[in-house]
């Protein structure tokens, strides 16, 4: 399927049904990602985690979501009503839309854009507007502070995030995610994580920060800000903010797999008989597990440390990474 093909009614219906299936998959992922997050953190901290609702507590998240949906939907009287309602939508829609260019296998992909990577970063920056507006529209100083912090953090870390993948783009010579994966075929020594190890580390750190997760979850630091930008939100509007956050976990894990871990390719050539999608899912899930792991084991860092880490460490490192990558590529070209 090509995004730029003629738009007819039948192709529109195709896209629509595909999008509905993807939404169902993502919702299923989010439901069980939350369950496993609580389970894994519980195990790491020597607790049991959710174990009451359903067998092994498997229906815990379903029950939580049901509670959120049944909750009274409150809007503060002095809030900006229109923006208060709009903000969760602005935060969620880009989170889902960025999934369109992620290639799961060489065939299973919604749109093979030749600027796929740019598409991802461009649209994900719109979510920040939603968070900032949610904080402002609530008319509450804690939520405003949370929204401000969140926007400042997301803007500062978007710069190293984008810079860190420039090395990958240079190596594969394309912004298309499909081409980037194709360039990593033939065993794990071809994966971008090896030549771009510095880029990978910067990418992971900046990505965790973009996701507002521990150790960078300052926007919702409970002890300082009550809850962050969504203090005044309850019920399904709150659920939308949470959903957006977890859909971004999905998106970032998939993007890391595609950019650095060889996408759907198997680590060793003789393992090729295992279907490509299985490899993708395995790599994807290990990234998701990694995110849970650091959330359970690392403390939150201080707000001024956060900013100086972003601007004074990650950004120069990313620039040096680009510079060195370019020189090495040119040298290899020269001596060949």
């Amino acid at each position, binding site marked *: 399927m090509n995004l730029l093909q*003629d738009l007819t009614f039948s192709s*529109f219906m195709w896209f629509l049904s595909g999008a509905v299936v993807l939404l169902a998959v993502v919702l299923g992922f989010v439901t069980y990602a939350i369950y496993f997050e609580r389970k894994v953190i519980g195990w790491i901290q020597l607790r049991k985690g959710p174990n009451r609702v359903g067998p092994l507590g498997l229906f815990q998240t379903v029950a939580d979501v049901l509670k959120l949906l049944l909750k009274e939907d409150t809007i503060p009287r002095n809030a900006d009503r229109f923006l208060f309602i*709009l903000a969760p939508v602005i935060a969620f829609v880009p989170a889902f839309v960025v999934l369109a260019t992620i290639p799961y296998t060489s065939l299973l992909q919604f749109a093979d854009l030749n*600027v796929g990577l*740019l*598409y991802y970063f461009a649209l994900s920056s*719109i979510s*920040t*507007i939603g968070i900032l507006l949610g904080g402002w529209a609530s008319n509450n100083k804690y939520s405003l502070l949370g929204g401000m912090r969140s926007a400042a953090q997301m803007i500062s870390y978007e710069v190293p995030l984008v810079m860190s993948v420039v090395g990958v783009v240079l190596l594969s010579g394309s912004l298309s995610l499909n081409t980037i994966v194709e360039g990593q075929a033939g065993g794990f020594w071809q994966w971008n994580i090896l030549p771009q190890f510095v880029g990978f580390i910067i990418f992971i750190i900046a990505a965790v920060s973009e996701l507002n997760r521990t150790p960078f979850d300052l926007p919702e630091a409970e002890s300082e800000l009550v809850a962050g930008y969504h203090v005044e939100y309850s019920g399904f509007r709150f659920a939308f903010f949470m959903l957006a956050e977890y859909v971004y976990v999905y998106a970032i894990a998939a993007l890391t797999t595609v950019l650095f871990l060889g996408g759907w390719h198997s680590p060793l050539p003789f393992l090729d008989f295992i279907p490509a999608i299985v490899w993708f899912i395995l790599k994807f899930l290990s990234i998701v597990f990694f995110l849970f792991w650091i959330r359970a084991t690392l403390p939150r860092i201080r707000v001024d440390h956060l900013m100086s880490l972003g601007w004074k460490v990650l950004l120069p490192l990313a620039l040096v990474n680009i510079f060195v990558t370019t020189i090495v590529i040119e040298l290899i070209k020269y001596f060949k």
Partner: protein
Amino acid sequence: MLENFKDFLLNGENLLFIFFSMLVIIGAVFLINLQKVVHMVIALATTFISLAGLYVLLEAEFLAFVQVLIYAGAMTILMIFGIMMTKHDRQNEEPKRPLHNGLLLLGSIGFFFIIYLAIQEAAFPIQEFTSVEENTELIGIDLFTWHVIPFELVSVLLTVAFIGAIIVAKREED
């Protein structure tokens, strides 16, 4: 005459064009008419994003997503930040000026007719447009071979502005 309209509307691409261009205009009109500044910025963001949609229709994906990244993402957030830091009480309603409005209406109708006649007269020669698959790559090659000096000059200009901003901010801090 009506056949033309029917053909035009049956094409999905044209429908999308109408949709996006309407959003651009609606965003711009709301930007002027809304009362609260934050609402205005949202209207402006709608305009920016719909413009990107128009670029996608013209098969300029690179331009479209750079538009989203810079205007819808960075610029809008910058403006929201600027607005939030300052206090905005609602301004008084503007006094009603019926004569003004009447003259405005007359002017608009006159302008519409002039433009309408001009468009009726104008001939738009159809040019062959061949879309290239790798237009992003071509932009890069063009930028770094034929236009490399302007490109470098712009980067120097931006660096100067950047350093200047830091110096101005520092001076206020002291």
